[in-house]
């Protein structure tokens, strides 16, 4: 088991965990960190994190069938993931990926899919109901004096029921959170960040990406195309606050 001097980013199952443009997260990290090593762990591979300590583990959104696959693939490494979470290894789960971390997924027919149980929540999959929203949330990072504003989109079949006392990824001022009744979005446990914000979260959020890069030890790495990504970020901070703003579909 070894830690790395060089930044190593492990992207789990990129061949299918790329729905809705979530692949934009790894794409942007590659642009920000041209010298980092990106390890793409595919379906048949032993995860890099099983024997090493990556700088960041990234898992993005996938279909419902692929969630079942992913749970099966990660189950043998559940204790290792607990160890890495406890050790503060940064992890980012986006889109529908956080659903593999809960205790179970309740399917539309009432059947249940046991999940990894790394976080205390239940996913209710309500297909064909589809939930759309735009989000502005406050991410309160212990390392920062001020909240980081996070913007994004939510498009999902699911609503989450969380156990008490867990830290959210962010608190939304715009848009629903884990379910329609709460503004608490996602989960944070040490440096594991899990959010249902979908698509290219990192290119949409220069401040959050800066925070993440700092967290993985890349304080000196400049944000790629910062002027351009910041222009769209600032625009969303304005337009998403307009009363009644929603996602066209």
């Amino acid at each position: 088991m070894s830690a790395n001097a060089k930044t190593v980013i492990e992207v789990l199952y990129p061949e299918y965990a790329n729905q809705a443009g979530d692949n934009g997260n790894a794409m942007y990290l590659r642009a920000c960190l041209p010298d980092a090593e990106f390890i793409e762990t595919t379906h048949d591979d032993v995860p890099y994190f099983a024997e090493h300590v990556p700088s960041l583990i990234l898992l993005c959104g996938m279909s419902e069938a692929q969630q079942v696959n992913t749970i099966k693939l990660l189950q043998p490494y559940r204790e290792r993931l607990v160890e890495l979470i406890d050790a503060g290894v940064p992890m980012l789960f986006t889109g529908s990926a956080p659903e593999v971390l809960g205790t179970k997924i309740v399917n539309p027919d009432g059947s249940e899919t046991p999940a990894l149980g790394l976080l205390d929540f239940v996913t209710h999959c309500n297909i064909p109901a589809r939930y759309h929203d735009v989000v502005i949330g406050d991410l309160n990072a212990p390392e920062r004096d001020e909240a980081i504003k996070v913007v994004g989109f939510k498009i999902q079949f699911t609503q989450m029921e969380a156990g008490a006392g867990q830290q959210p990824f962010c608190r939304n001022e715009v848009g629903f959170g884990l379910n329609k009744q709460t503004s608490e979005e996602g989960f944070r446990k040490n440096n594991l960040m899990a959010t249902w914000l979908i698509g290219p979260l990192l290119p949409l959020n220069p401040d959050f990406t800066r925070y993440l890069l700092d967290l993985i030890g890349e304080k000196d790495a400049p944000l790629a195309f910062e002027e351009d990504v910041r222009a769209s970020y600032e625009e969303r901070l304005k337009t998403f606050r307009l009363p009644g703003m929603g996602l066209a579909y």
Partner: protein
Amino acid sequence: MSNATKGAKGPRFHLAMAVSRAAASALKLARRNAGQMPGVIAEKIDPSFLADVDKPARVVFVSGTNGKTTTNNLLCDLLRDNGIEMIDNRAGGNVRNGVESTLIKNATISGRQKLDVAVMELDELSFRTVLPDLVPEVILVTNLYRDSFSRNANPDFIFSVMSENISPATKLILNADDMISCRLAPQNSNRVYYSIARLEDDSSDPQGIVCDLTACPQCGGKLEYDYCHLRHLGHAHCKSCGFTNPEPDYELVALDCDAHTFTVCERCHEGEPTHTYHFGNYSITNLYNLFSTVVVARELGLSAEAIAASLERGINVTALRYTEKTVGGKRLVAVASKGENSTATSVALDTIRKEPGSKAVIVMLADAHKAANPKETEYIGWYYQTDFEYLNDPSIEQIVIQGATNLDLLPRLRMANIDPAKLHMVETPEQAAQAVDPMSVDSVFWAFDIFNGGDVEKSRELIGKKIEEASDVR
């Protein structure tokens, strides 16, 4: 052959039929396309209208993520060219209300269907609202790819919606090269498969930055591709369980781009006869659309000779999404694709890249209708699944992006390593025309969302004038 089905007709049905027909007539008098309106009205009055209305004896649906409109129109043209009178939903729309509107248009006041054949395009998600009340004789599914995520989620979801609603009584005509849609409705054994054999231009792996089929759909094992014609369409096998494409009933075994012909071997028929057909402009998407049309026509009973004769007479793929004008010797070409559809947009960009000569490309992908509503924002995640990398080509010398999502397109194009010196960002179609220097390139291309046709024409006209003025000066 199916028989015409008669619905249960109560007072509500008759009222719905009368009012919706009157509305359709009034709109026709006003020279307005009724679209889905008759169906909307009918269903307001009789919520089970689609179940209650009579159906034509033969109904064919054409569905699939990409190519269904082109294929449906081509099939209609081919059948009509062979004297088959039929109704279609080109004007009505491909969802439940559109299908209802089409059947209303074909009905007498008593509700009887006038023509016995209907060939209609059907939206994939609408399988759940249409098929419970209308069992077609034939469904052609062209392919399944990821589509608008905000509406269609992922191909797995669409696959389930379609599969769950297909009757065992329907004949399925499926693309054997698409290992997603070829597995639709396993409960249905009435299946016909078509496939294109290996072609010279095939790639060894799926094309694009994302692929819709990377793992074996049976066991989840690693899928090894033998060849790909288009994106993930091709031939593959699972290294774990051996799962592979189904054997085709109709196989396109030879393609001659110089002679504009393709040859189909009918493996499902005695003696495995082969027939050669003419095609117009070649592209792999055109070939799939034309080939699948031929297969459906054959399954509906048209002779190969009659089909070949129609194609010789000029029945062919109508380039709905590709229009070209020439001004002063310069090509001004517009290539449309469905919004939020990364596959169709990537194919459009690839088409542009492969065109000869130097080019300027105007990218108009932000949906102008959505942008007109200040209370709505468009989902832009699909830009990260679209191969903008295709624009990073030496033949493309200028790129102009125009529309409400410019601020998101720009960083995506930067991530595709496009030289910022080539990039111009403008707000209006008029500014797009100003930003292009048409005299320094051979052609100007537009990659645009299907709803932005008006903006394309505005800028195309202005660029045409620029070329004419420059030519006059010379």
